[in-house]
């Protein structure tokens, strides 16, 4: 105990913030890849694949991320698999993000107008050509604003990695607090840093949404 907040503490927080960003990127990348596969499975022509992927999404969306974290960090070692905090946090986030992004992106695929799918089929494009050259370019445009918005959720949820001992922003705040015991001050600083990370993304997502809306209105007017 003792001492006051100094530059070293702030450096430590900055380091934690970098890990928060790193972990968010891991979640976005891993969850993005898995989520893309989930989205494709959700619109698959095979009924079983659709059902299985829908079941996966329901299971994950019905479980708190915290429990998934505990399950990977404490549960897997009980089965004889050793995991580091980074692995546990990264894997949990990947699973969590994949279910949500998969569901968001499925909606985006489905909101590409039906005639576009039919026209592509009428032009005798193969399944993969139709996807890559016709549907995906349009779906990406629709998907951008909600995906950027979801990145805010990812950043906020990385704070739960602190419970498995991964030293990101929230955990580094706890560590500093253990030595200084000025919880209100420290958690306010932490909150401000999270806000500084998330708010620009929120604004950006909102702006993209507005622009997208306007583009669609112009399209309809034309």
């Amino acid at each position, binding site marked *: 105990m003792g001492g006051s907040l100094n530059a070293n503490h702030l450096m430590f927080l900055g380091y934690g913030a970098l890990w928060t960003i790193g972990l968010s990127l891991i979640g976005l990348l891993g969850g993005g890849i898995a989520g893309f596969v989930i989205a494709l499975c959700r619109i698959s022509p095979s009924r079983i694949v659709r059902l299985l992927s829908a079941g996966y999404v*329901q*299971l994950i*969306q*019905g*479980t*708190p991320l*915290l*429990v*998934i974290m*505990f*399950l990977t960090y*404490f*549960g*897997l*070692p*009980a*089965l*004889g*698999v050793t995991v580091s905090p980074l692995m546990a946090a990264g894997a949990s986030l990947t699973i969590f993000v994949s279910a949500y992004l998969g569901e968001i992106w499925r909606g985006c695929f489905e909101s590409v107008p039906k005639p576009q799918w039919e026209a592509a089929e009428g032009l005798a494009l193969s399944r993969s050509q139709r996807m890559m050259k016709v549907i995906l370019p349009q779906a990406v445009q629709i998907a951008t604003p909600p995906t950027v918005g979801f990145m*805010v959720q990812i950043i*906020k*949820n990385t*704070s*739960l990695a*602190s*419970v498995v001992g991964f030293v990101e922003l*929230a955990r580094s*705040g706890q560590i500093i607090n253990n030595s200084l015991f000025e*919880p*209100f001050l420290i*958690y*306010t600083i*932490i*909150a401000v840093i*999270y*806000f500084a990370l*998330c*708010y620009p993304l*929120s604004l950006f997502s909102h702006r993209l949404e507005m622009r997208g809306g306007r583009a669609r209105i112009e399209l309809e007017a034309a």
Partner: protein
Amino acid sequence: MNLNLDFAAIFERWPAFLEGALLTLQLAFIATLLGTVIGVLGAIGRRSSHPIIARICGVYVEAIRNTPLLVQIFLVYFGLASLGLKFSAFTVAAAALTINVGAYTTEIIRAGFDAIPRGQIEAAEGLALSRSQIYWHVVMLPAIEKVYPALTSQFVLLMLASSVTSQISAEELTAVANYIQSDTYRAFETYILVALVYIVLSLVMRAGFWLLGLVIFPRRRRLGTPL
């Protein structure tokens, strides 16, 4: 990998799980109820013609939506303590969850208000409805009806998020699981079981909201629109 799973040892503890699940539902119920009140007031505030009120509501919504729940819980927990106020972990958890979900509800209900066509209000004025009648029948109810699905999924997310309050030792479901796994050394079985309980709870909540929707929006029931 040595797979010797023993779920029986965990099932034995079902009374503790049940108690935890009930506490989780209680937390969710309190926060949902109070959060709805905050949401309605906040949405009215955000659309207020008074710039300061609108600004305050806007800052509240953005501050909550752009910071993690975990940090909010710590802030409420230690903030109240540093003011010299002592509350039980359950009260603090309920307060933090209410503040959190209030911001999301504000934003959702505001979207509902914004979706009410201007012409509807003008028509109501033309029919000589009073101001309060217009507010209740033409703006409030249809707005909430429109955003009801979004609201209910937010409340289910809230129930799941209440697991985070285990970090300030509120004795809800996740805290019970942490205790049982440290007692039995059966972490995998415990958390699998707890995950299943959460899934059941979220299905129960969804079904509950669906039934509630049938009761409070009879017009929708008649139209056969899915909730």
